[in-house]
């Protein structure tokens, strides 16, 4: 399946927006967390600043999100991970309410009750979870619902290579294959399960090989490239949409930042990220677009400016938004029946 000009340009612009979003967050996150404005003796204070708590950023992993989501409709379900921003942005989750959620504001997707690992946007059928391997079962359920409702909607579960060793992965693949569900399982292999390399956590080199154990197709994209992901995902999603059942797709991707912001990354070779960045998927796609005459330098400048403006507007919205009233903590445990 070949990407159209519109799809290529959408992937490029969305990757630029994701990268800029994550790099902005990396800076915003540090506000108020460093000496001298924190408790004496601390090097870093995770609970301070406008965006407190853990923060897992996806810079470098953009191709997985855009290559898959380029094929999705609004009614298709995406369930993401604890590192969810690139998926959310690619699925069309509004940036302003998503950012407000991370700032803990009343205008956030969850009115400030979820935070960055727990983004819920029912309109765009997006959710995520802070628990490893938790995305697969609900994606099976969304796919089951689509079939019961007689729709051609599909569901995508994203998860990391570390989650491929969770029971939920194996249970879900078996269930999806058994019930022939329209779901695509997409493994982001960024090589690191926090600090443990894949070679020390996983019994085989390719998670995608596990597909054969469940009687479904498995494919590995060995290149962190949006077009390569687009092509592989296109087949898997079309298959699901046709009613031909689930697939497992694994994408070799690169995590440019720490597992979480503030991660000292003592486990990682010093020059690893610099080498990974030589293969940055964003300039690669830009040069492809230019080689094919689909984007001029002026077009690129306009696209980048537009993406950056979107991100800037979202952060501005989040900063300007009010905090919830403290007693709002008592609401929303249940919806009114």
């Amino acid at each position: 399946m070949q990407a159209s000009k519109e799809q290529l340009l959408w992937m490029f612009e969305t990757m630029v927006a994701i990268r800029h979003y994550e790099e902005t967050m990396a800076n915003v996150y540090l506000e108020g967390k460093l000496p001298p404005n924190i408790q004496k003796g601390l090097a870093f204070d995770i609970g301070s600043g406008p965006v407190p708590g853990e923060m897992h950023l996806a810079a470098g992993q953009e191709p997985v999100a855009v290559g898959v989501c380029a094929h999705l409709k609004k009614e298709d379900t995406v369930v993401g991970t604890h590192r969810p921003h690139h998926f959310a942005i690619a699925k069309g989750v509004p940036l302003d309410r998503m950012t407000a959620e991370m700032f803990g504001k009343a205008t956030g997707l969850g009115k400030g009750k979820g935070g960055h690992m727990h983004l819920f946007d029912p309109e765009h059928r997006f959710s995520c979870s802070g628990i490893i391997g938790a995305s697969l079962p609900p994606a099976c359920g969304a796919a089951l619902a689509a079939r019961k409702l007689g729709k051609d909607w599909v569901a995508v579960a994203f998860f990391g290579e570390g989650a491929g060793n969770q029971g939920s992965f194996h249970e879900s693949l078996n269930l999806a294959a058994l019930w022939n569900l329209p779901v695509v399982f997409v493994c982001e292999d960024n090589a690191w399960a926090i600090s443990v390399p894949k070679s020390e956590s996983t019994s085989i080199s390719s998670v995608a090989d596990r597909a054969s154990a469940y009687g479904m197709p498995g494919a590995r994209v060995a290149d962190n490239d949006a077009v390569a992901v687009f092509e592989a995902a296109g087949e898997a999603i079309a298959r699901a949409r046709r009613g031909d059942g689930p697939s497992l797709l694994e994408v070799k991707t690169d995590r440019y930042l720490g597992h979480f912001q503030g991660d000292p990354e003592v486990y990682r070779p010093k020059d690893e990220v610099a080498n990974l960045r030589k293969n940055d998927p964003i300039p690669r796609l830009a040069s492809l677009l230019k080689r094919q005459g689909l984007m001029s330098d002026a077009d690129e400048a306009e696209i980048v400016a537009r993406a950056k403006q979107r991100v800037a507007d979202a952060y501005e919205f989040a900063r300007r938004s009010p905090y919830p009233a403290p007693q709002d903590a008592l609401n929303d445990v249940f919806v009114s029946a």
Partner: protein
Amino acid sequence: MSKTRKLTMAQAIAEGIGQEMARDASVFVMGEDIGAYGGIFGATGGLLEKFGKERVMDTPISETAFIGAATGAAASGMRPIVELMFVDFFGVCMDQIYNHLAKNIYMAGGNIKLPVVLTTAIGGGYNDAAQHSQCLYATFAHMPGLKVVVPSNAYDAKGLMIQSIRDDNPVMFMYHKGIMGLPWMAYFEGSSSEVPDEPYTLPFGQAKVVREGKDLTIVTISQMVQKALLAADELAKDSVSAEVIDLRTLVPLDRDAVLKSVAKTGRLIVADEDYLGFGLTGEISAIVAENLDTLKLKAPVRRLAVPNVPIPYSRPLEQFVIPQVGSIVEAAKALMNARLAAAAGA
């Protein structure tokens, strides 16, 4: 006018589910052995024949996958009923229950609905030992985000089941094996009752005074309601008039019903088949204690529950740790003679 028939609790639950499935195409059932078998404890008997495999789905033994799938299907517009065969098995899938099903509505700021009914069998009394005999409703009631329904009889079970299915929130529907009226397990006759053939609902958070009395209040739930009623019969022979309160749901909890009854009788026993520590008996006692500025007790509060040991296998051991009719009678008689320290000192 609706006619009634005597049904077992299992039959009443299955009838309630079936009537909602007929009314609402988005309702479906999945779980282990819920199809051709009809549920190990009969809660889905006859549904496969009526509704077919697409709506009555036997699952693999993969509780994480299919309970998580229920959450996903509910978020996508369905109303799944999903069965965890024994509550004791929650250990293999609790992440999907309490980190996702129970919390997602809150973390979404109330912007999603999760109409999932999670049915599960509870309780001991038939020598199935520590991994198949627990109640654990307090565990689920302790964690925010799940409504917890624990019926004691067929009439309540049908109405509460239909109410559960129509609720847009996750509901744990916990049925005690020893009141289901199974042909292969002894049960309390009182749990089978007259049930209207028409659909009906019972609101959550409304306890029922199942026997009125004036001397002491027995607050209880599930199978223990049947034991408490038998105990009350015994006590009546000794001229002790016991009021029995069936809480029916733990979340939401009908605090007012407890306070009202204790205000009348001045004496409270909480009888429970769950563990004693940090559970239902403590919660009810605390509610009474917090209201002692207006409420007047004639005697201390007494708690009957499993004394913080796993449920043992051997018959004499199990019958010792689970409160029985006799232990309720004994506790009640003792309570009639007990005095508050302040009163004793006076």
